[in-house]
């Protein structure tokens, strides 16, 4: 069982009971509260983080099973996508936004110039109750400035 977890380049000892989710661990054990928990059962995407560049749901991922490098919003703060979101006003209450950015950065890493359809397909797992979607789509389409 891996006892070490790598997050944004830092290594942490996993000192938590089995069953602890990655999201809970990030927030409560190592203080990375940028990752939000909104449904805690895999239905909304607010808790999205990347593992080796792939967006996954940290609320239903057991921290003891994580193999690979975890990237959270805290590891993406200098990504141009952040400014693209701010410029486009792709943030309202902001609670889903870190998860949106994590998904968006993974998308453009694989596909730097996604079509509108590709953006919608890749972002459909991140719910936003404020309805920021049009601006999110705009931000991703224009992320390179």
């Amino acid at each position, binding site marked *: 069982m891996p006892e070490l977890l790598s997050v944004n380049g830092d290594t942490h000892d996993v000192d938590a*009971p089995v069953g602890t989710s990655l999201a809970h661990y990030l927030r409560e054990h190592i203080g990375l509260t940028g990752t939000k928990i909104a449904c805690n059962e*895999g239905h909304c995407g607010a808790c999205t983080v990347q593992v080796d560049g*792939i967006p996954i*749901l940290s609320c239903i991922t*057991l921290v003891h099973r994580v193999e690979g490098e975890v990237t959270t919003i805290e590891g993406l703060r200098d990504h141009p996508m952040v400014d693209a979101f701010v410029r486009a006003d792709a943030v309202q209450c902001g609670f889903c936004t870190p998860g949106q950015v994590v*998904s968006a950065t993974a998308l453009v890493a694989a596909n730097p110039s996604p079509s509108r359809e590709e953006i919608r397909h890749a*972002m459909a797992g991140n719910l936003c109750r404020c309805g920021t979607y049009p601006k999110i789509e705009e931000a991703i389409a224009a992320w390179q400035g």
Partner: protein
Amino acid sequence: MRESGGETRLELRRPDSLQAARAALEGTGGAGEPAPQGSIPLAGGTEVVPLVRDRVVPATTLVDVRALVPRGVDGTRIGAGTTLAELEADPEIPHALREACRLAASPQLRAMGTIGGNLLQATRCWYWRLRYPCWLHGGDRCYARAGLHREHAVFANEPCASPHPSDPAAALLALGATLRTDRRELSVAELYRLPTDDDRRITTLEAGELILELDVPAPEASAYLKAMDRRAFSFALVGVAAARRGEETRIALAGMAPVPWLLDGLEALETATPLPQNAYKLDVARALVRRALAEIEP
């Protein structure tokens, strides 16, 4: 609703061989099945983790089989540990299966969930998920039949109207796929069984049996169409898979019966036994079956 008691203490095991996994899983069914000995296999975790956490499935030992189950595509063979996202992206995969994967769940869930685990999904029936002591949980009545069932089964819905949610399962059923487990080979059709009074399970997997690999023969043409309540990230109200190989055309449905449902032609829809709130599913299915058949016409 059952009362749950006390704090759950979970155990996570990572057996290093199939044999060890089998020992760890002795006495259990597949995902979403009652686990008499309290252990359950864990692959992508998208289904098992929430179900165990909510004690819908009363397991306390999670047996991580991810490292033991093959992953990747080799010709017609697909490792059961291959994720839906990988299948969605692979141009060699038959269209119906790719499309079923593309339309399933969300990008994050597709990146996590494996095709093997997807086949073993439990029903989305809210009564079952909210732990009503329903027939499928071993009780004596189907709350959905007497209550709300707009999303429920229109075939074989007596005594239990739970709908089977898997899009890929319907696609694989239409494609005539076979499975290899750690102990036998069987067709996808043989994987599923309608639950009975004596045995409420919906698969024929033996205790602890693991799906390792799928064989999906290439069709001449195949299609998957899905009706949802919203445009993405939603379970099928009606999923229709169709595949043609030579003279043979097979149609399979998702969300229409307690198990993926093989449909013996468009007319067979008329044999359905819809409930008061879900007859609309048949209208939708008629259109989608016609369209799927048109899509795969030579």
